[in-house]
Structures are given as C-alpha cells and as structure tokens.
C-alpha cells in the first residue's frame, strides 16, 4: 500500500471540508475540517497520556485540528505533516541551532520515516536561554486527534518521534 497516496486525501480547494488556506507565496495548503471526538473518549485519552508522559499539562482538549493545524492554521483544520517543508520554504522560515531557539520558534519531529516530519510544536519556554542543551525547552503541541499539551521537548509519544530540527521565521533589522 502506498501510504503517501493517503495524504489527507480530500482537502483540496474544491473540498467543502477545507477552508481557504495558503502559504505566504499563495500556494493552497490542503486541509480538512474534522469532526470532534466524543468528549468521554477525549477525556479517557487524556488520562491515558498523563499516565505515560509525566511532564505533560493539558491546554485544550479537542480533535478538530492537528499539530500542523495548530501551528499554521490557527487551530481550525487538519493539515498533513507532509506539507510542512513547503510551508517552511514559502513562509521563509530558517533552520536554527538549539542555542538560537527562543520562545515562539518551532520544533520538528521525525519518527520512522527519515524523509518526512511526523510532528510539530512551538517552543513556549526556555529555562536556560542560549543553552545548546535541549533539555530545558517546554513545547506546546497538538497530539493528533487528542489534546493540546505543554510538555518537555521529547516527552511525547514514540509515534510522534523525536525532536530533530528547530526553525524560526523571526526577522531583525
């Protein structure tokens, strides 16, 4: 089975489940609105995740957007992780090293497949700014169809992968 053919599937501009969403260069970003999960299921998932990942703190519990939707689509829709590279390029993000990371920069994760990102989050706290270590970072990210959590950089489900890159859109003159 070619799983790449299942990238969000619908979500094209003509899909009624998508919203107008594009990169800074005007390229349409495929996206999909998604149904909410049953609240009792969401709650059960939260409790299960909290048992497995000690550092996580829940910010919001909904399934209508994913990690990419949280970062690039104002929490409105699901956007496939396969389009992250295109967005970074079109939106003029630059890759930065760990010691350059500031609050507001983004972190990208990879799991089994080294060619695509599996997860994305926003760094929201650094206990030791300017440090080359990555242990001090607190990240906000959306876990698939479950909650939006604040967590230590790599205190995430193995399915989401490990943090591999940091990127920033910040500009200074």
């Amino acid at each position: 089975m070619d799983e790449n053919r299942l990238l969000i599937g619908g979500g094209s501009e003509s899909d009624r489940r998508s919203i107008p969403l594009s990169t800074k260069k005007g390229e349409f970003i495929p996206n999909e609105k998604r149904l909410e999960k049953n609240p009792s299921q969401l709650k059960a998932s939260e409790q299960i995740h909290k048992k497995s990942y000690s550092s996580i703190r829940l910010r919001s519990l909904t399934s209508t957007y994913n990690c990419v939707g949280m970062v690039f689509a104002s929490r409105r829709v699901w956007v496939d992780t396969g389009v992250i590279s295109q967005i970074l390029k079109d939106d003029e993000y630059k890759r930065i090293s760990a010691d350059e990371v500031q609050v507001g920069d983004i972190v990208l994760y990879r799991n089994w497949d080294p060619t695509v990102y599996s997860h994305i989050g926003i760094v929201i706290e650094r206990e030791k700014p300017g440090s080359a270590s990555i242990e001090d970072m607190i990240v906000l990210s959306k876990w698939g169809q479950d909650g939006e959590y604040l967590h230590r950089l790599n205190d995430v489900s193995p399915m989401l992968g490990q943090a591999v890159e940091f990127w920033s859109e910040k500009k200074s003159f």
Partner: protein
Amino acid sequence: MNINKLFRSIESSGFIAELSVASDFRTLMNGIKSKHKIKELFDLIDENNELSVELFVRAVGLAREQVDDRYLNRWDIPLTIYLWMVDLFNKNLSKFLAIVIDDIKNCFWANKLARYIKTSNEIESESAGVLLDVPIELIEKIEEYFENNIKNEQQLKNYVTYNNIDAYEEIYYPIFFNDLFWDKGIILKPGKINFHATGDAEERLDLLDEKENGIDISTQDYGVFA
C-alpha cells in the same frame, strides 16, 4: 491470545489512545505496524487464513454499530486496522469491507483507507449496480460464521425490525450478509434464502430469486439502484 481477546484489546480505549496521536496516515500506519497486538493478530491469521472472515465480520459489526453522529466514530482506528489487515489477507473481502466503511460518514482514517482500497480495486461507483465475483467457498464460510455466531434471537429481531421486514417465518442468517450490500446495489451470489417478508424486503427476495446464480444486473433493470 485468541482472536476475540485480540479484538477486544485493539478496541480498548488504551490501545486507541496510543494510536490516536498520529497526525498523518503514514504515522498512523507505522504506529499500527509497530504494535505487538497487531503482530499477534497478523500471525494468527497468517497461520489460519479462515480467520480473515472472522476479522471481516468483526469489522462489519463495528461498522454497523449505532454511534453518536455528532462525533467522530469511536471505532475509526480499529476499523482502519481491520480493513488494512483484511486487505493484506483477502482482497475479495476487503473490497466489501471498503464499501461498508466508506459509507460511514463520521470516520476519518478508516474512510480514507476505504476509498483508497475501493480505488485500487477499481470498484464501481456507489450508485451503480455491481456484481462482485465472490468465490462460493468464501460465501459459504461467511454463512457458516453467521449460523454459528448470530444466534441471539433479540439480535435477529432487532435486525429484522431495523430493516422493516414485517413478517417472517424463517430466516437464514446469510440474508444478513446479503442485505448488507443491498443499498450499494451489490448482490452476492445469494445461496438459499427462504423467508416471508413484506414491502421492500419482499421485492428484494424476488430479485434475489431471479438473480440466484450471480447473473449480471444493471441499473436500468431495477430502479432501486438509481
């Protein structure tokens, strides 16, 4: 672990939660493949391919379960797993399952996989009448499964009521399976069906009778497919 215990395990909140963190289909499938329970299920069916029918039936049962339409179908991930697994072992069955699952409006991953399998298998459009060529041995196995497993009278009555079959004397369980695909305009080779019914169900029986040996059907012949 036997297959029923594996089913329950795969359908548990904990198992679903572990997989529901996936943000894309690649990650979901990689996660599924990495799970020990999935490997166990694969090995069981690999040893005894007939279990793919049980897997199929389990999936159909989940697909037909009444769920709250306001929310995402709670069985979205188990259905994705079952459909994928059925497709690995039995393309004939996965075609049917894909049709059933694609019809569930509030699934997400399972719908996508179903559409993919339908497209891959070049199944005709939903509104057209199609006759799928199912080996008779497979139908017999499915019938046997229903005879052995769907014996609960209340379950049968619920089914009969739900499908507006007003009167009946005797129902052979295979009708359950045949009827499943009726709305899609698909008729399996029906085998022996013997019960009295009224209204739509009666028409269906006549039609099944006429088409007993899997004779071709067309949209023009029967308005119900339009």
